[in-house]
C-alpha cells in the first residue's frame, strides 16, 4: 500500500454502466483497477468501442463509476478532477475564439489579467510551434495545428495530470509522429502523470512507460499491463526500429489481437 500513496490516479474496481433507453443497463467497463504514478506515462490500448474513453472520463470526473473508487493523489474524487487537463479526441476548441484566446482562456477564467494571460499564451503557442498563428480562428488551422492549440490550451494551466483521448487519432500518420515527438518534448520538461488512450499499439509503446491492454466490450476489463523498457529521451521515428520495440510489440499484440478480432466481430455481426 505504500506504493499507492504516490499514485496520481488510482482506479480501484471501477465499474461503469450506462442506462439504455429501454431501461436495461449497458456495462461499459467492469472492475477496472489502474494506477498512474506521479510522472508516469501510461497508455491504454484496446479495440474500438471497448470503453477506453469511458475510463478516461471517469478519471476526469466527467463520469461517475457505478461502483469502485477513484482516487486522485490519494483523495477520493468528488466532482470534476481539478488537477487534470483533458485533451479531447473531437475538436474541443472554442470556434469563436482565436488561437491565442483559446489558449489564454484557462488562465483568464482563473483570474489572471488579460494582458498577462495573453503574453503567457503567446509563449505556449510558440512552444507548440504556432507562434505565427495566434490570430487565426480554429477553422483557419489544419487538424494538426488545432491539436497543437489544444495541447497548449491544456498545458498552460500546468495540470498535474494529463488525460488524452486518442488526441492524434484524426491526424495523418506523419503528423501523428511529429505530434508524438512534440508531446514527449513538452512532457519531459516537467513529467506530469499522463493517461493516454489510443487504439494504435505502436504509438502506445513509442510514447509510454507502461502499456495497459483492455478487452473488447461490453464489460471491458484490463487484461494486461506491460512496462516499456525503452530508454528516454526517445525519438518516435527512431524507436520504432529498435529490437526491443519489436519484441514488446509482438508480445502485446499476441494478447491484443484476439480482443481486436472479438471487437471487430461484435461491431460487424450486429450482436
Amino acid at each position, binding site marked *: 500500500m505504500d506504493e499507492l500513496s504516490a499514485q496520481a490516479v488510482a482506479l480501484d474496481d471501477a465499474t461503469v454502466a450506462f442506462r439504455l433507453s429501454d431501461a436495461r443497463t449497458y456495462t461499459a467497463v467492469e472492475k477496472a483497477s489502474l494506477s498512474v504514478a506521479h510522472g508516469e506515462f501510461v497508455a491504454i490500448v484496446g479495440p474500438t468501442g471497448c470503453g477506453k474513453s469511458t475510463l478516461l472520463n471517469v478519471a476526469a470526473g*466527467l463520469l461517475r463509476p457505478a461502483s469502485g473508487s477513484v482516487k486522485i493523489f490519494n483523495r477520493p474524487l468528488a466532482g*470534476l478532477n481539478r488537477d487534470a487537463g483533458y485533451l479531447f479526441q473531437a*475538436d474541443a*476548441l472554442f*470556434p*469563436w475564439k482565436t488561437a491565442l484566446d483559446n489558449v489564454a482562456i484557462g488562465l483568464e477564467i482563473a483570474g489572471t489579467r488579460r494582458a498577462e494571460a495573453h503574453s503567457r499564451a503567446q509563449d505556449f503557442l510558440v512552444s507548440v510551434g504556432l507562434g505565427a498563428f495566434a490570430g487565426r480562428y480554429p*477553422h483557419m488551422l489544419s487538424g494538426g495545428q488545432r491539436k497543437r492549440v489544444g495541447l497548449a490550451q491544456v498545458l498552460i494551466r500546468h495540470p498535474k495530470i494529463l488525460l488524452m483521448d486518442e488526441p492524434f487519432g484524426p491526424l495523418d500518420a506523419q503528423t501523428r509522429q511529429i505530434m508524438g515527438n512534440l508531446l514527449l518534448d513538452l512532457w519531459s520538461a516537467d513529467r506530469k502523470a499522463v493517461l493516454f488512450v489510443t487504439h494504435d499499439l505502436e504509438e502506445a509503446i513509442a510514447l509510454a512507460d507502461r502499456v495497459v491492454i483492455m478487452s473488447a466490450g461490453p464489460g471491458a476489463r484490463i487484461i494486461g499491463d506491460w512496462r516499456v523498457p525503452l530508454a528516454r529521451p526517445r525519438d518516435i521515428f527512431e524507436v520504432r526500429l529498435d529490437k526491443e520495440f519489436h519484441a514488446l510489440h509482438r508480445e502485446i499484440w499476441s494478447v491484443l489481437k484476439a480482443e481486436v478480432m472479438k471487437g471487430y466481430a461484435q461491431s460487424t455481426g450486429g450482436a
Partner: protein
Amino acid sequence: MSRIGLLSLQLLVAVVALALWQFFSTVPVFGKVWLPPFFFSTPIDVFSQVIKWFSTGVIWKHLAITLWESILAFVLGSAAGVAVGFWFARQPRVAAVFDPYVKMINALPRVVLAPIFTLWLGLGIWSKVALGVTLVFFIVFFNVYQGVKEVSQTVLDNGRMLGMNERQLTRHVYWPSALSWMFSSLHTSVGFAVVGAVVGEYLGSAAGLGYLIQQAEGVFDVAGVFAGMFVLSLFVVLIDMVVTLVERRLLVWRPQAVETQA
C-alpha cells in the same frame, strides 16, 4: 463568366423586360393594347413618379419612417428573442411549460394582429414596430433556443475541464453560440422587420412606404403603386447589403459566411 459579362447580362434582363412592358402598354398589337395603362401603367410613368418623389424630396420622410420602424422592430424583437431563447434553453422546465403557447402564437398569421396593435398603440410608428417585433422575435427566438441547446458536448466538457463554472460557461460558451445563431438568421429577421413595418403601414398609418403604396392604390394610381414597390425593393436590397457587411464582420470565425439568399 467575367464580372462585366454577368453584369451586362443582368442589365439586359431588366432592359428587355422594361422594353416589352413599355411596348405592350403603349403600342396596339392586332388592334388591341395588351397591357392597358390604367391597370399596368408604363415603365416611363413609373420611373417619372420615382424621379418626382426623389426630386421633390417627399420620399425621404417616408423612407426614414419605414427605416426607423424596421430598425426598432429588429432591435426590440432580437433582444427579446435572444433573452427568451436563452432563458428557455437553459431552463428546460420553463420551456416545457410555455411550449404549447409558443407554438400557438407562432402558428398565428401575424397580419391579423395588426388591427389590434393599431387599436392599442394608435396610427403612429409603434403599432408597426409591434407587428415587426412579433415577426422578428420568433425567428430569433427559435434560432437562439436551438443554438444554445445544441452546443457541442465536447466544447462544454472542455470548458468544464479548463475550470469554467456555470457563469463562465454561459459567458464563454453558451452566449457566443447563441449570438452566432442569431447572426446567422440576420437576413431573415431583418427582412421580416421590414415586412412588419410595411404591412403595418399598409393597413393603417399616416406615413411610410406602405402608406405611399396604399394611398396610390386608393386612387387607382397604378404608376404610384409600382413606383412604391420599386423604391421598397431598392430599400430592401440596400439593407440586405448592409446586413451582409455586418455579418462578414461578426462571423469572421465561421468556416463559411452564410450566403445571401436573394
